Structure formats: C-alpha cells, structure tokens
C-alpha cells in the first residue's frame, strides 16, 4: 500500500463505535458506496497499542447548508430571484457521511479483521487509491477461484471479483425489477464459470441465455453448450407428480373420482417414457374399466370413471398444446439446434458434464408442467450426486423466474412438485456440490425456506417495499442502508452481499453485449408497428371481409 497516494477527504466526527462512524466530507471528494480509510489505534492482546488502518464504506451522505434559511427559499421562489444574484451563501454545504466499518488492517497485511475498539474521533479520513482498494478486496476475498463481475459502483477503476467456490456451493439469489440487470449478471457469472469448465444447468423460460449457443464457437470453443427442449418422460417412481399433474391440470375431481385415479395409477403399470403416452394409456384403461361394469372397482360408479377419463383427455390436450407452443417458439429460432432433454435418470451425463452448459428451454409451458419437469429432472440429477459412484460432476442449477418454481406458501401453490425438490437440493446441496442460483423479480413471492438458504445475494433495482423487506429478511449481510439504496440503482447496478464477497459492495456489472440472444429482439414494439405489414393470409381475409359485411348489412329478413 502506498498511503502517500491517499487523499485526505474529511474528519471523523464526535461519537464513534466499532460498527460505524460519521465524518465531515470535503465537497465532491467522495460518493456513496466509496471505500474510505482512517488511521486509528487499538489495544493488542499483549497490552500494546497498535496502529491500524480502519476501512469503511460510505453508506449514506447528507448535505445541509445551515447558512441557508428555509424562509429565504420561500422568498426566492415567490419573487423568482436567482440565489446567485443575492447575498445568500451558496458554497457552505456541510456534508456528513455515515460509514459502515468493514474492519481494520495491520501494516503490510491486507487481511481485514473485525474492529473491536472505536475509531478515534477527529482523525483524518482518507480516500485510498484504486489499486489499494482492489488489493484489499482481493486479499480479503482470499479466493482460489475469483470471478470477475464488474467494478465498484463508486469507482470504475476498482475491479470486483467474487468467490466462485462459495457461489457454486452455498447458493446465490439474484433479485431485481424487470430490466434492472439480473440476466446481465447471470450471463457474467456463466461466462466466468464456463471458462472454468464448471457444469451448469439453466432453466430458461424466456430464452435469455440462448446467446450462449449462438456464440459458442466464437467465445467458448472449449465448452459444450447444449440446448434442450422438455421431454415429459416419467417413470413408475414419479406417481405422485403424475397424480398432482392430472389432479391440477384436469377437471376438479370428487373424492371417489380421486380414489379411482389413484387406483388407476397403481394398477396401470408403465415402464417409463413419454408422459403423454402414459396419460393416453391411463385414459384408455379407465374407459375399459368404466365400460366392463368395473369388475375391478366395485365401489366406484362408471359415471365417476368417465369423469376421470374426460379429465385425462383434457390433461393430454393441455400437454399437447404446451408442447406445440414450445415447438412453435423453437421453430422461430431455426438456426439453433434443439435436442430433446435426455432421461436424467438413465443418462445424466448427457445433461451434466465437465465444461458443458445445458439450457432447458421451457417457453410455452404452464407453471405446473414446467414445475413437474424441473422436479423430475433435479431429483434425478441430485440422486446421481448422492450416489457413491458420482456419475456426474458437481454442477450449478440456474433457475430463472424462480417464483414460478418455488412460490411462497402465501401464494397457495404448495402443490408445485418443484418446491419440495428444490428445498431438498438447496438444503443438502452444499454437501453434494449441487449449488442453486435463484433469479426472480418478486422475492416476496418466493418460498422463504429456500430464499433464506442462499448465503449470497445480488440485488438490483427494487422499488416494491414488500420485495425490499423480503430481500433484507433473507440476507444476513445486507444492511438497512443498503436496502434504502435499492430503488435508486440504475440498470446493471447491484449490491452484492454474503459469502461471495465478505461485505456488501455496490457494483456496476460488466455488460457482455455479445451474449445477447440475437433472435429475441429488443422489445422495440413501436418500431415493430411502424414497420408492420400484414401477412398474406390476413390480407386475403381483409379482402373478402368487406363483401361479407355488405351482405350482412343488406339482409333485412328476420331469422327463423
């Protein structure tokens, strides 16, 4: 550290403690979020007095001009007077900064240690050089595998890195409003992890990560990037999930009808494979039972059985629709090669492998089927990590729009099968190397147990107070001052806290423009309408519409 390069920017005020202090700041010499230092002394365990450098982060700045009376403002406004024409003072702003103490360092050792003696009032506050701040952050992070994610919000020159080991094992949550920078952040982390050959599975609802496929050859020649579409394949072990799917997607069933469905699932054996085929088989068998006067189901009336048959038909129809919607979306991106999701139970290595990024494209699927697919997939992968053979390496699961898979209890969607699965994976995942990253714009709608298991948080702009409260509730390291900053963050600006950084840091995330999916477009709907031209089929319909309309208008005869 070269302290000669540090600029003096203020003086510590009055009362101090070991958590925070206030200082008077020279005009324009520091900003909120800046890291500053002050020299102090602490007693050592040997009874000596040791000089230390105390590091802190400016958590808030208040400016006041005691020489500018409020009533003067009233007169200036009423008379439309420019303050600069009057004798009123314009340069005596008093800036008071609140500093959250990060810890202290000893001479020649940049490892931050917790402060246990108050900062000396009236000491000078310094603005350390960018190199020294970066050196401190790196040294304090003490990471074998740092991931570069951006720069300190207040100082562009200070590059910020987070600890990859904690990231992939201790779970991370990324929250923020739509368009605040969550996806940019995830892409940044994925980019870094891909370079480290770390396997990842992305549950992508909107196709935000398809850019990785498009740019794979150019940017990640050493990686394997796979794009899967869901295959609703089930095995006999997934009976509970199948039952929930039919129960929730189909007609509402009465208790006897539910009993029949349960018994049906027990009786109709299935070796495993397409869920759709299984449901069609169930429907066929149910019809048979209903028509042969139900020798096997003496207590259930055929009418009840037919209700179940119709319900199964409805479920099958819905599933087909969802498959077709997903197919249509895939077709729009004809340049991309989509593969059917392999059976995670029997071929997990096709989904999770060293250096591979697997993206499961879920667009078009409703919550429940998507949840079922994810639940079955994660259960199987987790089982493989639990087994002694360890057929697949440790991996990170990235769950986009997480509130669809792990809704809060208050959402009354407890039946979603993915909730239980992800709860299990996130609780035990640390032991088995199955880290989870949850991404959501509505943290207040997430399952509390799962959210609180995330030991690190990356929070972007957030205006909704309920979501802000949920964020601070789930985080052990995000301060109230940090949460106050959330509504004012700009795009790509976030606060990182938790075990990936040791202390919370406001960060400008590096934007990887090359990772955007070119086929998705930029949501510029006004231009889309300006350049709109009807398709041929629409033009034809319009051509005849007027003629038909004329016929209708002259037809005065009363209908029979």
């Amino acid at each position, binding site marked *: 550290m070269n302290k000669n390069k540090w600029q003096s920017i203020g003086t510590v005020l009055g009362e101090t403690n070991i958590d925070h202090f206030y200082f008077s700041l020279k005009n324009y010499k520091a900003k909120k979020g800046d890291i500053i230092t002050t020299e102090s002394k602490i007693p050592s365990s040997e009874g000596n007095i040791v000089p230390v450098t105390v590091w802190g982060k400016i958590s808030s700045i208040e400016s006041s001009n*005691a*020489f500018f*009376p409020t*009533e*003067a403002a*009233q*007169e*200036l406004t*009423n*008379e*439309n*007077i*420019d303050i*600069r*024409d*009057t*004798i*009123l*003072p*314009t*340069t*005596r702003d008093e800036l008071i900064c609140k500093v959250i103490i990060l810890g202290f360092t000893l001479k020649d050792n940049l490892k931050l240690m917790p402060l246990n003696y108050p900062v000396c009032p009236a000491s000078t506050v310094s603005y350390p050089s960018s190199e020294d701040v970066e050196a401190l952050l790196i040294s304090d992070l003490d990471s074998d595998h740092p991931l570069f994610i951006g720069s300190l919000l207040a100082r562009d020159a200070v590059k910020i890195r987070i600890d990859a080991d904690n990231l992939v094992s201790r779970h991370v949550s990324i929250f923020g409003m739509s368009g605040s920078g969550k996806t940019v952040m995830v892409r940044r982390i994925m980019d870094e992890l891909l370079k480290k050959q770390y396997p990842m599975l992305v549950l992508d609802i909107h196709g935000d990560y398809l850019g990785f496929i498009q740019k794979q050859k150019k940017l990640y020649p050493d990686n394997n990037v796979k794009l899967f579409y869901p295959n609703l394949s089930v095995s006999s072990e997934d009976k509970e999930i199948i039952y929930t799917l039919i129960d929730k997607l189909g007609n509402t069933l009465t208790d006897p009808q539910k009993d029949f469905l349960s018994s049906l699932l027990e009786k109709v054996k299935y070796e495993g494979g397409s869920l759709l085929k299984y449901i069609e088989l169930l429907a066929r068998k149910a019809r048979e039972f209903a028509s042969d006067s139900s020798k096997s189901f003496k207590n259930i009336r055929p009418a009840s059985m037919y209700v179940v048959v119709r319900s199964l038909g409805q479920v099958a129809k819905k599933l087909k629709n969802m498959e077709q919607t997903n197919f249509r979306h895939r077709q729009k991106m004809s340049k991309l090669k989509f593969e059917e999701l392999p059976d995670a139970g029997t071929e997990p290595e096709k989904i999770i492998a060293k250096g591979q990024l697997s993206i499961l494209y879920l667009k078009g699927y409703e919550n429940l089927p998507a949840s079922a697919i994810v639940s079955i997939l994660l259960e199987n992968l987790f089982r493989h990590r639990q087994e002694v053979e360890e057929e697949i390496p440790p991996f990170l699961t990235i769950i986009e729009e997480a509130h669809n898979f792990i809704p809060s209890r208050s959402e009354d969607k407890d039946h979603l099968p993915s909730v239980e699965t992800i709860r299990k994976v996130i609780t035990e995942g640390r032991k088995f190397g199955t880290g989870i990253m949850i991404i959501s714009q509505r943290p207040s709608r997430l399952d509390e147990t799962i959210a609180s298991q995330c030991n690190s948080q990356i929070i972007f702009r957030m205006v909704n107070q309920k979501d802000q409260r949920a964020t601070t509730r789930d985080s052990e390291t995000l301060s109230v001052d940090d949460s106050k900053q959330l509504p004012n963050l700009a795009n790509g600006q976030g606060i990182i806290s938790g075990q990936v950084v040791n202390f919370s840091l406001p960060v400008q995330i590096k934007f990887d423009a090359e990772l955007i999916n070119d086929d998705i477009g930029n949501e510029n709907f006004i231009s889309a309408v300006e350049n709109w031209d009807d398709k041929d089929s629409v033009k034809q319909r319009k051509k005849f519409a007027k003629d038909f309309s004329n016929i209708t208008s002259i037809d005065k005869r009363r209908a029979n």
Partner: protein
Amino acid sequence: MSDEIEIKNKIKANSSLFTNFVKNAVTASPKVQNNFLEVSAQVALTVKKIIEDANLIMDLDYKGKDFWLENRCKTSCFIDGGVDKTSIISSAPLSIRTGSYIVKPDAEDKNREFFEESMVFLGDLYDPKNELYDLADDDFEEDQMLNKKKDGARIIFEAVTVVKHILLNRKFDYCFLHGPIEATVMPFTVMGFPTFTKFAVENMLPFYNKNRLNAEARHFVNVYLEALNHIKKSKFPIYGIVETSVSAPYIKNLLYSYKTKGIISDKDFKNTLATIKKYKITDSHLLEIILKSGQALKPIEIKKQIKGFSVTSGSAWEDKMDSFPDVNMGYIKTTDHSSPIRIESLTSSKNIKKDYEYILATARLLPNYGFPVGLNVVDKFAKIPNWMSKVSRRYYATHLLKQAVKSKDQNTISLAVKILSKKVRSWRNRPLGGMAK
C-alpha cells in the same frame, strides 16, 4: 392515576389559592393589559403626529428580482461576534470570536463569498497569564462581573474587527454589524472593571498610543472610543443593526428635540418620559404601530453615552462620555408581522434611502423573521455552539476532579465535588416528598 384526575386532586388540595389565581388571571391581568394598550396607543398617536410633523417617514422601494439584479455587483460585509458563556466556580474560560461574511454575488464561485474568522481569543479570566484583561484584585468577583468582562471583550472584538477591515483597505460597498454600532459603555465604568493587558491592546489596535499604553489608556472606555473614532473615518458605510429595541432612545430624543425647540412643554416632556419609563414602552412597541411594512424612519442624531446618568455619575469616566460620537439612529419596518429593526451609524449617509433599501432587501430574504439575512448567516458562523461549551465544561470538570482524586486528599475531593455541584441547588432539584421516584 390519569393526568386529569391528578390535576383535579391538586386543585382540590389547593382550592383557595387556585380560586384566587384564576380570579386574578381573568380580572386583574386584563385590566392591566387594557391599560397598557390604552397608554401605548395614546403615546403612539402623539409620537406619530410629531414624526409626521418632522417628516421623518420614508417609503422604501423593494423590487425583489430587479433589485438583486441591479445590486449583484455590490460587496457587502456582515460582522458578528460569539462568546462562550461557560463558567464554573474554579475557572472562567473565555472563548470569543468574531466572524465576517463577505459576499459579492456576481463574482466567480471561488471569489463569491468568504467566511472569515476575524478575531479569536481563547483563555481563562482567572489565569494569571491571561492575556486579555489585567487581573483585578477583587475578592468578591461574581458572575455579574465575569459576564461584564465577557461582554466587554465581545464588544471590543466586534468593533476592532470593523477597524481591521478599514485598515486593510477592504473595498466594501456596505458593512453591517450585528448589534449597535456604539454600545453603551456605562456598565464598564464601574469601579474595579479591569483594564486590558498591554499585549491585548497591542494586538487589537496595533496603531493605538504606542508610546504610552498606561492603565488608563488600556481601559475599555478608551480602547472602545479609539476603535469608534476609526470606524467613524471609514470610507464605506457601516451600519449596526439591532433586532429588538428594549428601550426608547429614538422617541425620547425626538421628544427632547421638540422640547428644545419649544414645541412641547417641559412638563409634557417629563410626564411623557415618565409614562414611557413606567410602562416600559420601547421604540419597537411604538414604531410597530406607526410604521407600515417597507417604511423607514429617517435617522436622527442620538447621544448614546449620557453624562451624569446612573452609574457613570461621579465615575472617573464621566467627563469622557462627551467624547463619544453621536449615533445616527433610524428604523425600518421590514415586514408586516415583525417589529422594526434599528439601524445605527456613526456618519450620516448621502444615500440614506438607497442604503436603507439595501438593508430592507437583505431583510426581505428572511420574509418571516424580517432581519438582514447576511447577519443571520454570520451569526450562525460566529456563534460558539452549545455543544462546544458543553464539551469544554465537561473537560474542565473532568480535569478538576482528576486533579482532586490525584491528591488523594478527601477534603480536596469533597471540595471539587462541591464546586462541580454548584448548580445542583436549583428549584428543579428540590427534594421531593413521599414516594418520589
């Protein structure tokens, strides 16, 4: 027990006193108030006639935005002093500073405004090495004398600050002092009021009587007079501005001049003065009724130091009183709802209307308080804040106790505790009866 029941019980217990107390409030007090209003109104009416007769009322023009656009090139200086009032029996710490706020609105940012700590003194009045006053040989020195010393020091410091600006050839268009341009010196003429040290006078007025700085020359009266004589010679206008007038110098002098002209009789003059004194009627009271917002009273010459008056009578300084310059005193009613402010200067201005309009405009920037905002600014700058005084008192107390404890003598410790608890015997700390918490 609820507050209401408690109050009712208290009233019951003190029923006779309470009844009389209320009776007095609803009968006697309003009578007195009515009488006061009646007398004030009558005096005001008479004074108004005289003021109108003497053509003393000036209508000032205030044009808000246009005024400031025209006057943005003017440099103004605002001066105020602050003094720390802390004292405990064992010591009399004295901290004084005078601040100047100098502003030229149209100057570039870095030259637009300056806050200057013009004079600073930190010391203790009991310190033999104290370099402000000579130590007085007075065993009965009390708070009153200590306060006088502090006030005297502040008045001198403020005057000397003005002199300093004059000597430094500062190019001001206006200079304003928070307070009277010439204070009444009477309180400092009492026997035993110490002289300033040679060192202090040399520092305050380096040009003053270099060859013969004897005790007489170093007395407050002489040093202050010297400073005032310099202020009188200033090339730029200097005004002292007083927020509230607690006496009636303007009215009394106006009546006196009419008496000398023979327009009012000796008897009427004396009786009216007696009424003014009896009812404690002040210039502010009367002029608040007489003047409208934006109106001013032209300045009249007033003698501030009256020979033979009260304490100065028979004092060694009695003859000196005539040497003090007369003060030009006027008033401006800056807003409808604030009492007029008193304007004092040692010279008469050729542009009195313009000068007063400038003062009015600076006061209009505080539309409720109605006092020149520049003086409000410098007041905040120069004032020694309470927290500073508290810290200093705490420091003195801790230091004293430490010394006492160090001596290990029980009597010394007990004395120190007594000294520090001087203020404990106050009405707030009277012992409570019964189940006091």
